[in-house]
């Protein structure tokens, strides 16, 4: 029994330890009252990345309370609905430092209820972190839409907005914000079936959500790689072939 307890404690601590080398680790920020993505969707994302790309993700995501040390996790994820809620000055300063150092924050709005409360709160949150930058639409021809899949539609479980939003700093997107519940599109039940249907585009919309997820992760790991001149001709040729 004693040994079992020790192993249990060890397993509990495992996700909090950073992985060696430069494996991709998904770090989800927990906040009182916010809506976390379904665990099955996080697992599905990581599994897909491992099987379809050369990204080596850690097998599970890391969950950290807001205000905890995030310096080991360049890719942060914040989900929620209704409103993002207030962050203390210390917490926003921690985000600011982390994002300025090279981190990226992905914000996923899980449900909009047809209101802009969450959008407004994200806008305030971004202004708190980087007062000089603004939350803006990410252009359709941005490298984020070419980092792995070509021109995926901005889709998720919902289709609230046809655009991704973000905060650009020093030529890169440090905050990427989706209003369409991307994680919701990945969620499956125990039998492997999708939990939520995608509206209004159905399964085609889900596939676009899959592509967009991969692109966001790939963008965080490769930056402007697909803007290199060597890719330009190939990409243009492929786009013309559509």
């Amino acid at each position: 029994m004693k040994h079992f307890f020790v192993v249990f404690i060890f397993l509990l601590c495992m996700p909090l330890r950073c992985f060696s080398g430069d494996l991709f680790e998904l770090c989800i920020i927990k906040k009182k009252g916010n809506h976390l993505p379904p665990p099955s969707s996080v697992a599905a994302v990581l599994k897909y990345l491992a099987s379809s790309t050369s990204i080596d993700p850690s097998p599970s995501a890391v969950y950290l309370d807001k205000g905890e040390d995030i310096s080991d996790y360049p890719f942060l994820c914040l989900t929620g609905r209704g409103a993002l809620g207030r962050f203390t000055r210390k917490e926003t300063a921690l985000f600011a430092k982390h994002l300025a150092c090279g981190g990226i924050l992905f914000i996923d709005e899980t449900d909009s209820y047809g209101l802009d409360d969450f959008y407004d709160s994200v806008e305030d949150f971004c202004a708190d972190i980087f007062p000089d930058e603004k939350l803006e639409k990410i252009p359709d021809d941005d490298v984020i839409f070419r980092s792995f899949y070509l021109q995926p539609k901005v889709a998720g479980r919902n289709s609230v907005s046809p655009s991704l939003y973000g905060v650009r700093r020093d030529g890169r997107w440090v905050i990427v914000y989706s209003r369409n519940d991307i994680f919701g599109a990945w969620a499956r039940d125990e039998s492997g079936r999708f939990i939520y249907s995608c509206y209004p585009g159905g399964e085609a919309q889900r596939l676009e959500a899959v592509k967009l997820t991969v692109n966001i992760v790939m963008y965080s790991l490769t930056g402007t790689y697909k803007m290199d001149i060597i890719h330009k001709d190939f990409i243009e040729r492929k786009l013309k072939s559509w």
Partner: protein
Amino acid sequence: MIADLTLVLLAVLVYLTLRSHGGFLRVVALGLVFFLIANPAFRKKSSAPAPVLAVCLDTSLSMDAANGGESRIAAALDAVRKNLPSLRKKFKLLFYSFDTSPRMLEESAFFKLKASGKASLISKSIAEITGFLPEDASLLVLSDGRDTSSAARYFSKPAYCAGFGRNCLNDMSVKILAYPEKAFQGAVAKVRVRLERSAGCAEARVRICRKGATCCEKKVLFSEGQTVKECDVEFIPAEAGQNVRYTVELSPSDGKPENNHGFFSLSVFKSKIKVMFISGRPGWEYRNLRALIKSDSRIDLTSFVILRNPSDYVPFPDNKLSLIPFPVREIFLKDITQYDLVILLNFDYTRFLRPDYLLPLAGHVKSGGSLMLIGGENLFNKGSYFKSPLSAILPFKAPLSGSFSDEEFFLEPSPSHPVTSRISAFRGLASTPLKGMSPAGVLASGAQSVLAASTGKVAAAVKNAGKGRVMVVLTNSMWRLFFGGDETSYFYQEFFKNSFAWLTRSPLLDEISLSGRKRYKIGEELSLRIKLRNIPRESISVRHIAPSGMSYLSPVMISPGFFNVKKLLRESGRHSVRIFLSGEHGVREEKEFAFDVEKTEIETADTSANHSHLREISRLSLGKYLGTNSFVSSDIPYPEDNAGFYRPAMKNYYLIFMALFFAWLWFKENTR
């Protein structure tokens, strides 16, 4: 004014008092009154010794050259002999001879001097002589003006120079004093030149040319009386290469065109280095390193990341993917030699290419290219690179066993390697743990550790491989330093920037930069400028290795980080100067500067007189150029110090005297 009026009043009173006396006494009294009112100052009788004049004769070999019927030295001695009586009347004479250094002589020995010195350091010798002389002394310099040293000097006493030998009246010359060993293509480089003119032309143009085409032109203006001017000419090397030769040309053309040009060669480094960066997978190390490289305008980056492995399944058609084929053959068999630096990050080549594809890369590195391998799970997977053609150039030996380690460690940079010497003392490294290290064996022979892990292992090592260089960093977790704080983030950037510079042999990382000429003649003075990248806390020592033996030279600090080394060269052959920077751990950096000394002696190679140099010495020392092939002693002024030769006027004493005199007269007249 009041004193003067009082004096006049007293004089009138004296006159009135003596009015009743005889005419003679009145005239005497009146004369005395006027004398006192005139208030003259009296000249003292001087007892000071006669001022010293040092007669300095150049005895270098060039003074033996014919000067009409007789030699220059004979003409100079004749001129002294002729003026000796008049000089003796005014001055106390001291006699000196000089070639490389001054010597004091008796008068009899002076007139027996022969020209035999192998070099003439005129400015240096005169500067030394002025140090021996008393305050009011002056110098009479008899020389042909051929100075084998170009250093400007400070002369504390006036030098009156007489030039001997036939001087070309319309001559202007250029001499290259210093140029850098290395420069960057497209960046400004400086050449230091010395221009001399005899007379006439007040404007010159210095051109730096490459293969006949002018790279730059500089206008040099001489002020009135100025005959020598040293200046820096800036130019921008357009092409990269080793020993790129440039010529320095002076215009307008004059009566002696052979001294209107010179040449120098330097190594010009590419302004942009071409880097091929291949990453085995997307990751934070790739992202950060790529961002760092992209931010450097001097790097032209070509990058490939393996985004999908052959085993990965993508449920979308290929035209929906932005992926391009990895051009293995083009890169490794064809284009690899075009890159100055190849970076392979966590790249397991066995998945994509055969080992023989790495042969051109190994050959490229040995012939001057550079390679950086960065660790990860895939880098030395199953000992891959240790079984490849790259194994011989790697700084590590193959590990006996082991796999990618999950161990946590802290970095400890080497204080002695140029890559890390300036960033080795960062405290933040001890609080930012890294994780993950590729397996590797012990250091290969000739390899050097750059980064150590707190676990005792070597985290990064370098090795010279033929003409090229290789660095292996065993961890791909250095990106964590970016998030560790400002200090560690700076370390990350500096470490990789320095590594790229070291690998590509960029001068940016040179601890010691040298600037000097590569060819000299016997009798010329070596002048080497040393620039240190860091203002040294360590000691700097300089050795001169001549064909006959070694000697130590004393570097003279010009400004913090800049030193000058000079030495008169008396021996022909291959010479070198070795500069050592030593610290607590022994010699930290060493650099050699090799140069050739021709058998020709500078004194016999060109015996033409250079009176412009003597004019310049006269001008700088506030003396006078006395003329050519003779001089007149009256041109050398006798120093006069007016302040010491007159007794001051004594108006107040006269006033008191007059007052007492009047009081006595009045008393005498009225108490009778």
